[in-house]
Structures are given as C-alpha cells and as structure tokens.
C-alpha cells in the first residue's frame, strides 16, 4: 500500500523534471506556434481564430451566436484601445477586423493595409451591393478618390449627421423662439438666432454641441463646406484650404461665434461628460441642442423622459446654399490586408453586417441601417420615433455626399491633426490671446505639416 502511495507522489526531482518539461513545452509552443499548429493533426486544431477589435458593440451574445453557427471559427474580441491599436498597427500585426470610422479609412486604403472585399461581396448571400446605401461608399478608394474603386469595408450603421436634436424644455418661455417642422427649411443663421435666444433666456451651461465637442470639427467644416460646394482639401490632398478659402473662413467664423459666446462644449466651456449624450438624458437635461444625426435618437430611446422632451430637427442650410446632409462618421468595419484568415474574417464580417446583428441594430434605431432592405425595421412606435423617421426620410435624398477625407492625415484615434490643432488654438483665440487670423493660420500650418509628412510615407 505504502509503495503504491509513494509511487503516486511527486518527488522533488520528478516535480522539477515535469515542471521543466511543461515550461519547455509552453515556451516551444509560443516560439514555434504556427509550425507546431501545422505539425499537429488537423482534427485537433481545426478552429480558426479571428481577432476583432471594437468598442464592445460586438457583444458576447453575437459572438456566441456566431460561434454556434460556425464551429470552425472562434472570435477573439479585443476592446478598442488607441494605444494598443497603434502598437499593433506599428508592428505590422493588426487585428483581422476592426471597427472604424469613414475619416480613418483612406489612410489605410492608400497604404494597402486593407483587404479588398469585392469578391466576397459578389459571392455573399447576406449582403448585396445593390442593397447598400451610399454611405458605404466611404469604404471605397481607387487611389485618388473616396467613394470609387474597390470596397474595403462597409458601414454598420450611419446617419445624416447635420440634423439637430433639441431639448424642448429649453424653448418654454423663450420669446420668439421657433423650431422648424420635420421637412421645413431653415438656415445656419436661424440656428444661431435660436441658440442665442435660448442662451439669453435660459442660460444653459451648454447650448449647442457641435461636432462631438469639436473632436470631429474638421468633418463638420467639410460638411458645411460641401453645402457651399467647396472642399477642405484639393483633389490631390496636398494641403488644407483655410486662409486661402473665403468659404472656409466663413464656416470657421460661424463656428467660432459659438465658442466666443460660450454656447458650445469646447475647451473653453468644457462639459465633464465630453459630449452631449449624457446631458440630454440627465434628469434636468443640461444641454439644450446638439447637432448629431439620426443615431442620437437611439441614444435617447431608453429614457422615456428624454424622448418626451426631445425632438429631431432637419439639417440647416446656408442662406442661398444647397441642402446636403452627409454622414461624418459612417462607423463600420474593415478587414486587414495582412490577415492570414481572410475567409474566416469575411465570415465574421458578413455575419455582423448582414446577419442577425445587423437586423438587431436596425430595430434599435441606433443609426440608419447600411441596407435599404432593413429600413422597415426602424422603430416607429412613439411620437419621438415617428418624428425622427419623418426627418430622416426627408434628409436621405441629400445624404449621399461623400466627403473627401485626407488620406495623408495619419492618426488612429477619432481626432485628426486638424481637429487637434483647432482644439489647441481655440482657447487662446477665444480669450483674445491670438487673433482670429492667427488662429486660422496656426490650424493651417499644423495641418499642412501633418499632411506633408503623411504624403511622403
């Protein structure tokens, strides 16, 4: 008995020996991973792992559902972290798929870092190119233009982003304050007048959120310039047009007025939440208006009080200008050009963009679906949603403008060098420490330096 017991015990020598074998195997596994995988019989290692980096919208429930339907593919979801993403990209080992926004796509497409997906789209049963709305064209790049050429991804959802949401409580008792109906025409000057009246009468701390507290200010300027038929960059993307463009100066002057009047959520009048979403759902509603798209309604939908007191308004236009209402975010997914599991990555992409998650998202009103066929799923049960849909249908025909984001601007966060320069110089300009002319010149110089650097590499 005792002999048998002794046999089952680990002696110090055998423990160390087995431990060394274990450590050695682990080390060899990590050093020779791919080789080992090839050497081991296929039956044991037949699952392909696809790495997805997103902000948590690719939920565990979706992953479980996908893996149950595709037992040979496993999803390894990584929470988006700019530093981690930067490191992965810099090292040339990006995730297989990642969530992104339209403004960031051209920089990768230009550098051949994205996988062209046309052949996959052509074979797909879930996603049909003819069913895609124009917003997905932001994920196309032909070497010179955004919106043409191969498809490198598509939007997961989007919205005409120049529309405005207002907290109606801030209108009560404001003399002469009028808001447009869902299909009415109104101008940027009307918006300024309305904001000024609200500010004067109600003194909200934050009257209007423009471009996500300016972090997307370059996109906002591009959209406002598009309404004037102008662009922020020339067709070769070699520089930025600010001081040499009367239209750009006019657009920035218009936006600057809000900062000077402390109506915005900029660095000179910061909001602790960083954007207007929480301010709209807060019990008292701390933000009066926000210039976001249809998707913002999805952010409010879970809060009955917020939906009751909020209303979506159409996008303003310039006096004498044409109506355009492009998306400035167009959030979607791309697949890395360096993926070793292209087919499996596409399977994940296809599921998320055309399968159950796409239908699920459309039903939540969290943005306009990428496909026309999902439109009938948009929520339309209460007056708030019905109004949103009315505004949306009116805006859709003018939402097909594709803004030409500069592929020479390299940056992996949402904020580009242009927006960073705007935020950097705005406080001094508002305080009068630098003139408006210097403010524009400084933004232009910083932006051009970043563009030139990106153009060469």
């Amino acid at each position, binding site marked *: 008995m005792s002999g048998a017991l002794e046999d089952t015990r680990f002696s110090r020598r055998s423990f160390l020996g087995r431990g060394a074998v274990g450590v050695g195997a682990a080390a060899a596994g990590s050093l020779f991973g791919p080789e080992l995988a090839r050497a081991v019989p296929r039956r044991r290692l037949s699952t392909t792992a696809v790495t997805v980096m997103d902000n948590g919208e690719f939920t565990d429930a979706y992953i479980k559902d996908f893996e149950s339907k595709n037992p040979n593919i496993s999803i390894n979801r990584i929470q988006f972290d700019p530093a981690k993403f930067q490191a992965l990209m810099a090292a040339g080992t990006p995730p297989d798929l990642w969530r992104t926004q339209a403004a960031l796509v051209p920089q990768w497409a230009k*550098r051949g870092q994205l996988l062209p997906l046309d052949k996959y789209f052509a074979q797909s049963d879930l996603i049909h190119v003819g069913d895609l709305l124009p917003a997905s064209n932001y994920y196309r790049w032909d070497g010179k233009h955004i919106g043409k050429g191969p498809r490198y991804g598509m939007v997961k959802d989007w919205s005409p982003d120049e529309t405005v949401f207002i907290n109606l409580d801030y209108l009560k008792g404001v003399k002469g304050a009028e808001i447009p109906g869902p299909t009415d025409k109104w101008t940027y000057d009307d918006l300024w007048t309305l904001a000024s009246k609200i500010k004067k009468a109600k003194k909200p701390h934050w009257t209007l959120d423009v471009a996500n507290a300016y972090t997307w200010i370059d996109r906002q300027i591009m959209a406002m310039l598009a309404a004037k038929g102008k662009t922020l960059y020339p067709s070769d993307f070699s520089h930025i047009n600010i001081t040499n463009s009367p239209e750009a100066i006019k657009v920035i002057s218009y936006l600057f007025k809000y900062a000077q009047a402390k109506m915005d959520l900029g*660095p000179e009048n*910061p*909001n*602790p939440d960083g954007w207007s979403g929480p301010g709209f759902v807060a019990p008292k509603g701390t933000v009066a208006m926000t210039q976001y798209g249809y998707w913002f309604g999805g952010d409010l939908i879970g809060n009955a009080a917020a939906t009751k007191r909020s209303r979506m308004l159409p996008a303003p236009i310039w006096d004498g200008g044409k109506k355009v209402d492009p998306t400035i975010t167009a959030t979607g997914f791309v697949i890395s050009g360096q993926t070793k599991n292209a087919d499996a990555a596409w399977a994940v992409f296809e599921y998320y963009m055309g399968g159950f998650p796409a239908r699920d998202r459309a039903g939540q009103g969290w943005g306009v679906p990428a496909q026309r066929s999902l439109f009938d799923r948009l929520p339309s049960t209460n007056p708030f949603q019905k109004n949103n849909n009315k505004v949306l249908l009116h805006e859709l025909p003018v939402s097909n403008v594709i803004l030409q984001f500069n592929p020479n*601007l390299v940056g992996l966060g949402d904020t580009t060098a242009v927006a*960073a320069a705007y935020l*950097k110089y705005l406080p001094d300009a508002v305080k009068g420490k630098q003139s408006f002319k210097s403010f524009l010149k400084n933004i232009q110089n910083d932006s051009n330096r970043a563009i030139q650097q990106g153009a060469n590499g």
Partner: protein
Amino acid sequence: MATEANARSAVVTRKPRRRASFRRRETLAFYGFVSPWLLGFIFLGLLPIIAGFLISLSNFNGLNLRGYTVGGVHYRGAHYIGFGKYVRAIHDPYFWHSLETTGKIALIVIPLGIVVQIALALLLNSGVKMLGFWRTMFFLPFVIPVVAKAFMWKAITDQDGGLLNRIIGFAGGSRHIDWLNGHPTSLLIMFLVWGGAGLGMLIFLAGMKSIPEELYEAARIDGAGRIRSFRSITLPLLTPVLMFQVVTGMIVVSSMFQEPLLLSPNMQAGLGTYVPTGTHVFNIEALQQIMVTGDWGYGAAEIWLFVPILLLITAIIFFSGKLWVYSGSEQYK
C-alpha cells in the same frame, strides 16, 4: 621519485581546475540569477530606447513600417531622414512651453509635497492615538487607481455643486470657481500633492522612527524645544530621505501624463484630448505628436531632447547633495 613528482604535479594541476570549475559555476549561477532582470532590461528597456532613437531619425508614422505601391508609384517605408525633427523641435515654441510647464509644476509640487509629507509624518510621530488608522487614511489615496482618483477629483472640484466650491462658498468665497478650466494647474498640483502624500509620509515616518531617541533626550537636557529639536536633529538626519524624495519626485513629475489627461475638462477624445496649456506637460506634447498626428519621429525627438535636460537636473541634485545631505560623518554641517 618520478612517480612522486608526477603525483605532485597531478595534485598541483588538479587544484586550479577545481577552482576554475567552481568559478565557472559561480559565474554561470550569477548570470543565471541576473538574467531575468538583464533580459528584461535588454528587451523592455534598452531595445525600446534604441528603437526610439532610430525612430526620431526617421519618417515613421505608425503605418509605413514597410513600403507600398499605389497607382504605380512606390512609396518607401520608414527611412532615415536625419536630424530634421530635432531641429524642428528646437524651434517649436509649444515644445519649449511644455518643458516650461513641466518645470513649473515640478518646482511647486516637489517642495510642497515634501512639506505636506513631513508635516503628516510629524503629526503621526507625535504620539497621536489610533496611529494605524490615520496612517491607513493618509496612505489610502496612494493605492487608489489614478483613474478613480481623477474622476473623484473632478466631482469634488465641479464648478456647479462640487464639494470644494461648497466649502469655499461656506467660508464666504465664490461657489462657482471653474477649477477644471480656469485653474487647471492649481488643480493638478493639488491632485499630485494629495496623491503622493501618503507614500512620502510613510517614508519620512520611517526615517523619523530610525532617529535615536537619545539625541532628543540630550537636546531636551540642553534646553532645546520642539522646534529647535526638529531643526537641529530631525531635519538634518532626514536629509538622505529628503534627497530620495526629491529624486523620486522628479521622476514622478517628469514621467507624468495620465494625470493631466484625466483631469482635462473634456476627456471625450481619449489620447487626443485637449489638455489646457497650464497642464500641457512635456509627455502630453510628445504623446499627442505620436498618437494624434502620427508623427512618431517628432515625438521621439522631443523625448530625446528632454533626456540631457533631465540628466543635467539629476546631476545638479546629486552634486548639491554633497552640501546638504547628512552622510554620518563630519560632512554634516
């Protein structure tokens, strides 16, 4: 005779071989023991430092590790471009401003922090009741994660209804001080001093406990009061600890970036967040050059330009220490 001589020579030759073998084993053991640290230093310290220097001489932007061809035009990958980034940084007022901001904050935070730490240590060393409780309370801010601390401070210093403004209002001051935006430097300084007070207090307290009680007794017999005892015994004997705290304070301030970022009024843009000029420290400047504008070379050049400045300051602190740090000999004055 010949056999005896052979035997002797065998003995003679065997001994050094044993010694050599022992020494070799000792050497191997030494390298075996230090190799984890050495490998860690090489791969996680030395190589990144070298890589950082090489990046500062290149046009690397985080995406162009390899070359690529677009429309028949070939773009080279990251390559050597000389010292242009250094020249640009030297002429960039925002780089110098960030250094100035870092220096100003260090000049206030380090001395103020030390005063607070010594004061707390003296308080706890004066025979206060529930010493363990107070020690824990003062040390607590140090163990709270910086993110939690920052959000707590944002709530405390909120312009509308923050605790700090309420206290100031109760004392007759303004209830609506915009700390986040109007006084970002003061806010950051308070935050750093508060956050570091617990650890510094413990270190000073340990230093005070190690001072022999006989010295105080002798001073009392000689008629010295508390202030005189502190000035002539406690403080001089604490100078090695003071030196340590000055050096670690320098390290903390020169490597800080999370605190100004987290305490900025608007954190929406993550690493691209606008950080007020009063707290736009050197690390924020370099980090944003890399993360926001993708100018890795410029960010790395800024970091490398900071290195000689930091070395100079460290050298001054160390050499000045000969004048004021008590080392247990007559050097003490």
